[in-house]
C-alpha cells in the first residue's frame, strides 16, 4: 500500500504545530517550539496540530474558534497547561491523524459574514462594481494616503489575538493602505506573561524570528549563540524610539549582549502609525512584553 507507506514516512517528520498562546505560557511555549522535533508554523493553513497553551480568556474564545477552523483537515487540537510531556503527546496526535484518525469538525457555523446569494444583477450579492456585499463582504473604499495624499483603498481589520507576528493576546484594530499602517488602536491588551518572558534571549529570539532568522532564534532559546550576521543592520535606525533615547536596534543589541531592557513603551496606537506592517511588528516586538502590556493598559485607561 503506497498510501500506508507514505503516511508512515510522513508520520516520522516533525509535527506541524500552530500555537495559540494564552496567559502565562509564552516562555514555556517558545521553549517547546524551539525543539527540533516540532515544526513551528506561521499560519494555521500550514499546520495540523493547534496547540492551545493555557486557559484562553473568554473574550478571545471566538477568535480561537476561528483559528481552529482555519486548520486544514485532518486536524487536531491539543490543550496544554504547561506541564507533562507535550512533545510526546503532540507526536502521538500527529501519528494518529496520519494513521486515519478522525479530524475535528468546524466549531463555527458554515455561514458567510453577510448573506449575498441571489442578490444583485448577477446573483453576486452587490450592485454594480463596488456596491452591496459581493460574495459576502463589502469592497474596500478609498481614503487619503499618508505619504503623498493619493486617494487609495483602505483595509480595516482586527488583527490578533493569535497573530504569530504580534504578542499573544494583543488585538490591533488597524487600517492599512497597502502595507502602510494608517491608523492603529489596541482593541485588547496582550495577555499577562511571567517575568521570564522579558529575558534577554527570549526577547532577542522574537525579533530574530520576525527578521526571518528562525534557526538563530531557536538556537538562542536553546542556550546557544546566534550565527546570523547583519541582524542589527536589518532593523532601520530610529525605529520605535523610547523616552530614554534608545531604538529597536539598540534594544536588540542589548538583548544579544545578555542585558535586560527596562524601558517605557509609548502608546502603541501612536507608535505604529506611518510604519510599514513589518516595521510595525518589529516595533512591537522590540519592547519587553511587560512594558508593552503596561503601555496598552495605560492607553485603554486613558
Amino acid at each position, binding site marked *: 500500500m503506497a498510501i500506508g507507506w507514505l503516511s508512515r514516512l510522513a508520520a516520522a517528520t516533525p509535527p506541524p504545530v500552530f500555537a495559540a498562546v494564552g496567559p502565562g505560557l509564552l516562555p514555556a511555549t517558545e521553549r517547546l517550539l524551539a525543539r527540533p522535533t516540532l515544526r513551528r508554523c506561521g499560519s494555521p493553513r500550514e499546520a495540523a496540530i493547534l496547540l492551545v497553551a493555557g486557559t484562553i480568556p473568554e473574550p478571545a474564545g471566538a477568535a480561537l*474558534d476561528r483559528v481552529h477552523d482555519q486548520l486544514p483537515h485532518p486536524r487536531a487540537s491539543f490543550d496544554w497547561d504547561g506541564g507533562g510531556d507535550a512533545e510526546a503527546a503532540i507526536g502521538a496526535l500527529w501519528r494518529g491523524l496520519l494513521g486515519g484518525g478522525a479530524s475535528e469538525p468546524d466549531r463555527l457555523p458554515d455561514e458567510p459574514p453577510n448573506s449575498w446569494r441571489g442578490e444583485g444583477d448577477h446573483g453576486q450579492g452587490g450592485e454594480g462594481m463596488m456596491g452591496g456585499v459581493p460574495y459576502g463582504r463589502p469592497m474596500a473604499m478609498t481614503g487619503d494616503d499618508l505619504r503623498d495624499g493619493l486617494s487609495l483603498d483602505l483595509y480595516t481589520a482586527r488583527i490578533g489575538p493569535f497573530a504569530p507576528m504580534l504578542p499573544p493576546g494583543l488585538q490591533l484594530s488597524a487600517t492599512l493602505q497597502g502595507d502602510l499602517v494608517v491608523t492603529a488602536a489596541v482593541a485588547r491588551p496582550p495577555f499577562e506573561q511571567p517575568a521570564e518572558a522579558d529575558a534577554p534571549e527570549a526577547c532577542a529570539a522574537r525579533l530574530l524570528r520576525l527578521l526571518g532568522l528562525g534557526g538563530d532564534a531557536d538556537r538562542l532559546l536553546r542556550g546557544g549563540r546566534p550565527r546570523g550576521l547583519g541582524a542589527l543592520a536589518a532593523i532601520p535606525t530610529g525605529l520605535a524610539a523610547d523616552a530614554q533615547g534608545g531604538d529597536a536596534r539598540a534594544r536588540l543589541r542589548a538583548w544579544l549582549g545578555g542585558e535586560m531592557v527596562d524601558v517605557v513603551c509609548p502608546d502603541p496606537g501612536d507608535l505604529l502609525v506611518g510604519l510599514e506592517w513589518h516595521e510595525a511588528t518589529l516595533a512591537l516586538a522590540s519592547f519587553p512584553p511587560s512594558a508593552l502590556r503596561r503601555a496598552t493598559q495605560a492607553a485603554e485607561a486613558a
Partner: protein
Amino acid sequence: MNLLIVVAVAVIAGVALTLAAHGGARPAPPGTAPQALPFLGGGTPDTHAWQRFHFRAYSMTLLFVAFEMEMMFMYPWAVVFVAEGLKALAEMGMFLAILSIGILYGWREGVFRWQ
C-alpha cells in the same frame, strides 16, 4: 503521409488524455465559510482584501522606458544618418517628439521631484 498519421495520432491521443483527466478528476469540495476567512490571527476584516494600491516604482519605470528607448535607437540611427542625412534627422525628430510626450507626462506626475 507518415508524418501526417503520426501528428493525427498524437492529436487524438492528446485530446483523449485531456478529456479522460478532466472527466476523472473530481472537483475539490468547496471550503466552509470559516475556512474561507483570511487569516488575521483570529481577527476579522471589514472588507475584501482586493484593493487598489499605488505601484510606487511606476514613475521610475516611465523614465527608464522614455530615456532608454531613445538611446537604444540612437546608436543604429547614427550609422544610418551618415548615409541618409536630412531624412533620417526628420525621422528621429518625430520619434523623439513622441517620446518627449511621455517625459512631459512624467514631469506633470512629479517624476523629477526627488524626495
